[in-house]
C-alpha cells in the first residue's frame, strides 16, 4: 500500500470522484489554478477544466447556496470553505436550508452536497484561522459531520460523502495535512460514514478523539504505555453525526473510564455529548469521572506562541490527563 499525506489522500478522493461521476464539481475560493490555499485541489483545474473546478467569488454564503441549488438540481457539488472560520457567513444556508430540506419536503428533495473545510489550531493562525466549528453543525439533525484522522479514512470517507444523498460537512485537521502520513489502499474503496473506529486496544481507560486530537492521542497512549504501563483504548469518532453509539458505549463497557479530547473550547463542545451519553447509557459500567480535555473557554485561539500553546491540547496534556484518570 502506498503511503501518503492526509492532503494527498483528500486530493486523490476528489480526483477519483470527478473522474467517476460527471455530476461532481468543485467550487470555492482559489480552488482553480491556485489549487486551493492548502493545495487540496492542485492539478484538478488543469485536468478537469473550469466547468468542473470553479473559482468562486469571495462569498461563502453563495458558495454553499450555489452548492445546495446545484445539488437539488441533480449535481454532486463539493464546496470548499477556505478555513472553517469562514463558514459562518454560510451558516444560514447550511442550518436553515441544507439540513432541513429533506425533512421539510416530506422526503421529496435531497441535498447531496459536500462541504469541505480545514479546521483547527496550533498553526499560529490566531482567532480566525484556528477555529473548531464541528459542535455547531453536529448539533443539527439532518447534517452529517465527518472528521478524518488518517489518510486512509480521509480518502474513503470523502468518497462516501460525495456519494451520500445528504449534506455532509467534512472538516479536515489542517495541521495534519502534511504531518499525518499513512498507508492508503490501492484502487477503489470507500470508508462508510457512521462507524467509529477502535484504533488502539486497551483495558485501563478509553480516550475518545477525532482529527488532530486523535493523532496526538495515539502518541500519548504510546507514551503512557511505555512510561507508566497504562493501556488506553483509543476510539476515533470519525463520524461525529450521526454518532456510532455502539462503538462508543462498547469501549466504555470494557474500560469504565473515559477521557474525551477535543480542541474546541470545552463548554458545550462535542465532548459534552459523548460524556452525557456515557453517563446516561453506560452508568452501571462507570468506574471514574468522565473527563474532558479541551481548550479553555475563551473566544478563540490566541496568536502569540505562548498563549496558543496554553490553549491547545497536545501530547503532553493528553498524557497527563490519561495518567490522572488512570490513577483515579
Amino acid at each position, binding site marked *: 500500500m502506498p503511503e501518503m499525506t492526509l492532503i494527498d489522500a483528500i486530493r486523490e478522493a476528489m480526483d477519483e470522484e470527478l473522474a467517476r461521476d460527471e455530476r461532481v464539481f468543485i467550487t470555492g*475560493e*482559489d480552488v*482553480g*489554478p*491556485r*489549487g486551493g*490555499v492548502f493545495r487540496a485541489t492542485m492539478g484538478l483545474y488543469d485536468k478537469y477544466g473550469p466547468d468542473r473546478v470553479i*473559482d*468562486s*467569488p*469571495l*462569498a461563502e*454564503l*453563495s458558495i454553499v447556496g450555489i452548492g445546495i441549488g446545484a445539488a437539488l438540481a441533480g449535481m454532486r457539488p463539493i464546496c470548499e470553505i477556505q478555513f472553517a*472560520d*469562514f463558514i*459562518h*457567513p454560510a451558516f444560514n444556508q447550511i442550518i436553515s436550508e441544507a439540513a432541513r430540506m429533506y425533512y421539510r419536503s416530506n422526503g421529496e428533495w435531497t441535498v447531496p452536497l459536500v462541504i469541505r473545510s480545514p479546521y483547527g489550531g496550533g498553526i*499560529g*493562525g*490566531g*482567532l*480566525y*484561522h484556528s477555529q473548531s466549528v464541528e459542535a455547531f453543525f453536529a448539533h443539527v439533525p439532518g447534517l452529517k459531520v465527518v472528521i478524518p484522522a488518517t489518510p486512509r479514512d480521509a480518502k474513503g470517507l470523502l468518497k462516501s460523502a460525495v456519494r451520500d444523498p445528504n449534506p455532509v460537512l467534512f472538516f479536515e485537521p489542517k495541521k495534519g495535512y502534511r504531518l499525518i502520513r499513512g498507508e492508503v489502499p490501492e484502487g477503489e474503496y470507500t470508508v462508510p460514514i457512521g462507524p467509529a473506529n477502535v484504533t488502539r486496544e486497551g483495558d485501563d481507560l478509553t480516550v475518545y478523539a477525532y482529527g488532530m486530537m486523535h493523532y496526538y492521542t495515539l502518541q500519548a497512549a504510546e507514551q503512557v504505555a511505555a512510561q507508566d504501563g497504562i493501556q488506553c483504548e483509543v476510539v476515533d469518532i470519525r463520524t461525529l453525526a450521526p454518532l456510532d453509539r455502539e462503538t462508543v458505549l462498547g469501549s466504555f463497557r470494557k474500560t469504565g473510564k473515559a477521557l474525551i479530547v477535543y480542541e474546541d473550547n470545552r463548554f458545550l463542545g462535542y465532548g459534552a455529548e459523548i460524556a452525557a451519553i456515557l453517563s446516561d447509557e453506560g452508568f452501571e459500567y462507570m468506574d471514574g469521572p468522565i473527563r474532558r480535555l479541551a481548550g*479553555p*473557554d*475563551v*473566544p*478563540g485561539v*490566541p*496568536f*502569540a*506562541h*505562548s*498563549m*496558543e*500553546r*496554553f*490553549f491547545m491540547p497536545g501530547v503532553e496534556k493528553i498524557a497527563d490527563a490519561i495518567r490522572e484518570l488512570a490513577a483515579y
Partner: protein
Amino acid sequence: MATDLETRPGIDDSGVQLEAATLREMYWQMLRARRTDERAWVLHRQGKIAFHISGIGHEAIQVGAAFALRPGYDYALPYYRDLAFNLAWGYTPHDFMLALFGREGEPTSGARQMPSHWGTRSLNIISQSSPVATQVPQAAGVALAIKLRGEDRVAYTSLGEGSTSQGDFYEGMNWAGVHKLPLICVVENNIYAISVPVHLQMAVPNVADRAPMFGVEGVIVDGNDVLACYRVVKEAAERARSGGGATLIEAKTYRPTPHSSDDDDRTYRPREEVEQWKKRDPLARFQAYLLEAGILDEQAIADYEARAREEIDRAQAAAEAAPFPPPEAALGDVFAPVDETLRAEE
C-alpha cells in the same frame, strides 16, 4: 486614469493645495511604511516571524486617505493591507514589530490576533477581524451613530475588491445609501483576491459601478497616485460632513508581493504583469514628482531613508527582546466588568 503601463504616469495634483512640509510628511509616511513592510518580509525569510501580509504597492491610497481625514477624531476601520494608513494615523513600527513577533505589550490585541489586524482605541481605529468585509456594516453603524449624535466626524473603512462579493458589503452600503450616512468606503482594487482575478469576482468592470445601486456617490481613482487619492477622499469627507452621504471610492492599484507569506503568486499570474505594475510604483512616482518640484532632493531622501532604517532597527530590536505574553493571558478579557452602579435592587 492612465492605463499605459509602459510609462510611469505622473502625479495629478489638480485642486490639491498642500504645503511643501505636508507633502514631505506624506512622502515620509509612504517611505516609512514601505521600509517597515520590507523588513517584515526579511524577517519572514530569516525564519524569525511566521506570517506577514503586505501593503506594499498600496501606500498611495492609504496615505492619501490618512491625510484627508482627522486621525483620532474620525473613525477608521481599515483592512489588513493598511499598514501605511495606520502608521500615518499614529501607529508605530514598534507596535507592528511586537505584532509580527507576537510579544508582550503588543498594543492592538495583546498579541491575541495575527499581525495586521489593526485596532487602536486612542486613535479611533476599531479592532478588525479576519473574515473579510465584516467591517463595512460596522462602519455604516459608526456612521449612523455619528449622524444620530449630530457630530461632524466621518467613518472610514477599506477592503479589497474581492471582499466586495460578501453580503456584508452590500448590506452595509445599502444602509449608507438609505440613511445618507457619513461613510467613506475605499475599495483597494488590486485585481486579485489571493489568486482569483477580478473578472471572476464581478461582471462589471469597476467596483464603483455599483455605487448607483446603493444610492451613493461612486468614484474611481488611480490608487497609485497619492495626491489624486488625497483629493477624492477629501471630497468624500466634505460630502459626508455636509450631509451629502456616503462615497464608494475605488482605488485602482496592484499588489506586487504575494498575497501573504503563505502564498506563491507564480501559480496564478505572469511575472511580466508584476513587472509592468512595478513601473507604476506609488512611492517612486511621488518621489519623482517631489524631486521635480524641488520639494525633495537626494540628500533629503537619504536622510529619510536613514531615519526609517534607524526607527525600524530600534523597533525590531525592542520586539525581539520583548518576552512572550504570559500563557495565562489567553484567559483574559472574555467579558467586560458590569457597572455595579447601574444595578437596581428590587
